[in-house]
């Protein structure tokens, strides 16, 4: 038997293969944009040469928040409760500030139930990467509008959404968030570089990733095909039927340009990458671009705002240099003499 030549496994700067960064199989709908984001997370962590066990994967509840099981299998993680991932991360961070906290959230998690916690995590400038996998719908509960759904969005049943959406990037910039970016789940190249930058940022790094739902963010067009199936395949249990689509196409938009993208359901969204001339230190320019794009029915992508000068939460807490986790018990507990002194003073 002839020996097969060993295939060279590509290693990163800390000699880890990419396999060290992968996770379990996804249980999301085939073709879901969230899975592409998971791939980007694996690539970015691998390319940045971060020790996988020094990452903490944090999430709330929802389709997005299930994804930590699908990447970074060598990292501890906490799939917490709906909208409350920021607080759990804050507590963990207070005890062990030396880990890279990578939070993944959705638009239900971040723009509705957890908007308060998101706001306060930004306010504290906690060191973490906060990815919002933004699809405008509640997937796991089968397709209700979220607070980021555009006015006029239509779901399978019921009236169109008439409620003003919340732009989480504009909100974050107004709150003084120190790293704000928007991208698209299909723009792997752009998203990877944004995520790598976010991982290196000291402070709160928010990336709002437009990640269309392949199943529920349907308009009437797709309803037609759904209805068609429904009418013609009467033997199916219709309530459980999840139509499968091709993955969201990969797309990279050159800086300063825009592209219309046709989604799986036949609808289009227009992505515009903010031009190279945009100064990410200029919050007003970023807000102008965001609001301008909104009125044109576009979504601007790329790094929108960056402020590397603000102190992060660790500095505000005034803690000892090592992580509190590493402070020995004998130091954590004040000594006997200190209590004797207190007792004596109280009795005096």
């Amino acid at each position: 038997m002839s020996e097969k030549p060993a295939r060279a496994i590509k290693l990163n700067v800390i000699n880890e293969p990419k396999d060290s960064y992968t996770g379990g199989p996804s249980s999301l709908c085939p073709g879901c944009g969230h899975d592409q984001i998971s791939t980007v997370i694996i690539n970015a962590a691998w390319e940045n040469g971060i020790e996988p066990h020094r990452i903490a994967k944090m999430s709330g509840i929802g389709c997005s928040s299930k994804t930590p099981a699908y990447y970074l299998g060598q990292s501890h993680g906490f799939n917490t409760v709906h909208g409350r991932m920021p607080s759990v991360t804050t507590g963990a961070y207070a005890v062990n500030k030396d880990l890279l906290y990578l939070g993944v959230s959705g638009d239900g998690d971040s723009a509705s139930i957890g908007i308060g916690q998101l706001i306060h995590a930004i306010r504290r400038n906690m060191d973490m990467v906060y990815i919002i996998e933004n699809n405008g719908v509640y997937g796991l509960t089968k397709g209700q509008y979220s607070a980021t759904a555009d006015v006029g969005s239509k779901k399978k049943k019921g009236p169109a959404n008439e409620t003003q959406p919340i732009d989480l990037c504009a909100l974050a910039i107004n709150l003084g968030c120190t790293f704000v970016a928007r991208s698209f789940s299909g723009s792997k190249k752009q998203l990877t570089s944004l995520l790598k930058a976010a991982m290196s940022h000291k402070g709160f790094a928010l990336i709002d990733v437009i990640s269309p739902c392949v199943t529920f963010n349907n308009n009437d067009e797709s309803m037609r095909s759904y209805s068609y199936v429904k009418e013609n395949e009467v033997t199916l249990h219709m309530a459980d039927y999840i139509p499968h689509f091709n993955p969201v196409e990969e797309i990279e938009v050159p800086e300063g340009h825009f592209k219309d993208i046709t989604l799986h359901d036949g609808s289009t969204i227009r992505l515009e990458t903010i031009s190279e001339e945009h100064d990410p230190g200029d919050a007003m320019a970023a807000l102008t671009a965001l609001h301008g794009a909104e009125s044109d029915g576009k979504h601007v992508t790329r790094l929108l705002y960056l402020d590397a000068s603000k102190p992060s939460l660790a500095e505000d807490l005034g803690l000892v240099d090592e992580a509190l986790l590493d402070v020995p018990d004998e130091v954590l507990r004040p000594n006997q003499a200190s209590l004797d002194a207190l007792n004596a003073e109280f009795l005096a």
Partner: protein
Amino acid sequence: MQREWGGNMLKGCMRTPTPKDAPTVPEKRMFRMGTIINDFTINIATANGTGSQSANLILLQSLFDMGVPVSGKNLFPSNISGLPTWYIVRLSDKGYQAPGDRTHIQVLVNPATWDDDLAALEPGSVVVWNSDTKGKTVERDDVVSYPVPMSSLARKINPKIAKLVTNIVYVGVLAELLGIDQTCLESAVAKQFKGKASAVELNITALGLGRDYCKEELTKNDPYAVEAREVTKPQFFIEGNEAAALGAHYGGVQLLAWYPITPSSSLAEGIINYIPRLRTDDDGKATMAVIQAEDELAAAGMVLGAGWAGGRGMTATSGPGISLMQEFIGLAYFAEVPSVFWDVTRVGPSTGLPTRTQQSDIAMLYEGSHGDTQHIVLIPGTVEECFEYGWRAFDYSERFQTPVFGMSDLDLGMNRWACEGFTYPDEPMDRGKVVREQDVFEAFETFGRYLDVDGDGIPYRTLPGSGMAPILYRGTGHNPMGVYSEKPEDYYNLMQRLRMKIDGARDALPAPVLREEAECEVGIVFLGSMENSIQEIDDILEETGLKVSQCRVRALPFHSDVEAFVRRHETVIVLEINRDGQLYGILRRELPNDLVTKVHSVAYSDGMPPRARIYAERILATLEEVNQ
């Protein structure tokens, strides 16, 4: 034991009001027959935000420093300034600490409650009143009346702060009337104002004005007097919240995440205040973090995050906060994350009476969150126990990998109690089954986060950042390896193991305090701050010839000694400060069937700290029903 009643002893001592021009007090104080020494209650009616709390604490502290057994209850409103406040000072040589059944000496400063306070007095009571109060006077001829122009006296010192000084004037009057030692009074002033010279001087001057007015213008015409007592063991006054805060430091707390709420804020602030002294290194850097959260949900989340990361996190809150934290409490139970929650309870439901006391969160803590849960609850009844459970809570939480509650209440937490001193932890911190070293980890044949290796229901855990056996913690169903599972046997086994784990904690938790009579007739099971009323209740019951034993529960789930106590006694009363008998409900459910019928509930709450007579009468009524 026969208990003396101030009310009875007052018969024949009724005095008519003293006119201002009455002869001055003879040089030497004359104690006539019927003089009542160290056994009466003073009620001081003021308005919130007028500085009366300082004056009242000075009165309390000076009595305490004379060695007089004394307790103070602050009945304050949910308001910053203006609403009525009462401070009840009870002197009792028997050491009774509940507010008495009646007021013997009423101080009237607040016109808003004047008429009601006056009308409520029994004949023979003493009234010290601010005669500068517009439109108010004391017209009852069956009380001893001491009018004092407190405002005018106060204005003499400094018109700008007359309102503040008014309060200290009545302390001077009381000091003279009752014979409070001047040295003790002055040292109490120094303590209250932490030696701040100008404030100390001002207050001592005001005290003197009150004293002098009393000496010169009033005739002592009542039976009440204070006598110094030998103190065998030196003691100091401290609030339960401060004691618990110190305890948390000696438990090595690493994160305090909190949201302000009465009556727990002073616990959190107590922790913060001691950081510079107890938890800061030479460079001024702290070994613990404090985060004031955006709400109680976030505070709970931060506590869980700290526990998940391997640290000691805690929060301090009250009932409404615990209501908001329910979801996280369930997550901590199910994902087995150490976390410590202090609930300084107040009157519910809803916002309830935010500044009044109650024991009505027992069931919510024990069974917090949706689904089948069961939690460890530590229930201090003294300030020493507030301190002890302050540190022990972390040990239990890490040992059993589960949320642990400290359940105090407003009465214990925010009032001052006598304390002989705090005892240093007698054992090292128990960090539980945490695998920190690679070689220890490798010795496991199979490592599963939720694998019951030792048969005690407590699994081993590794920490984030360690690289050992990483898992995704989750609030969803999981198998022993920590992997998502909806399999019936995985769910069933997990829930059974969790039950076994908490059940196994019973006898590791603080045992009940038992004070038993040989006869084992009536046993009273009670908890928490009722400790301060129980002896008086016991004495009232024993006046009727009953033999009464006491069992103070100090933790949930119940220690096995509680069941044994119930078994030994003919009739058992579960006594608690709430409407529904929450502790009774839990006990009834957990006792074997043959014991259930002899257990009866006496639950009562009106927002006031428990007055012994009310509870004693209800116990007697219940016993009568039982015996019919």
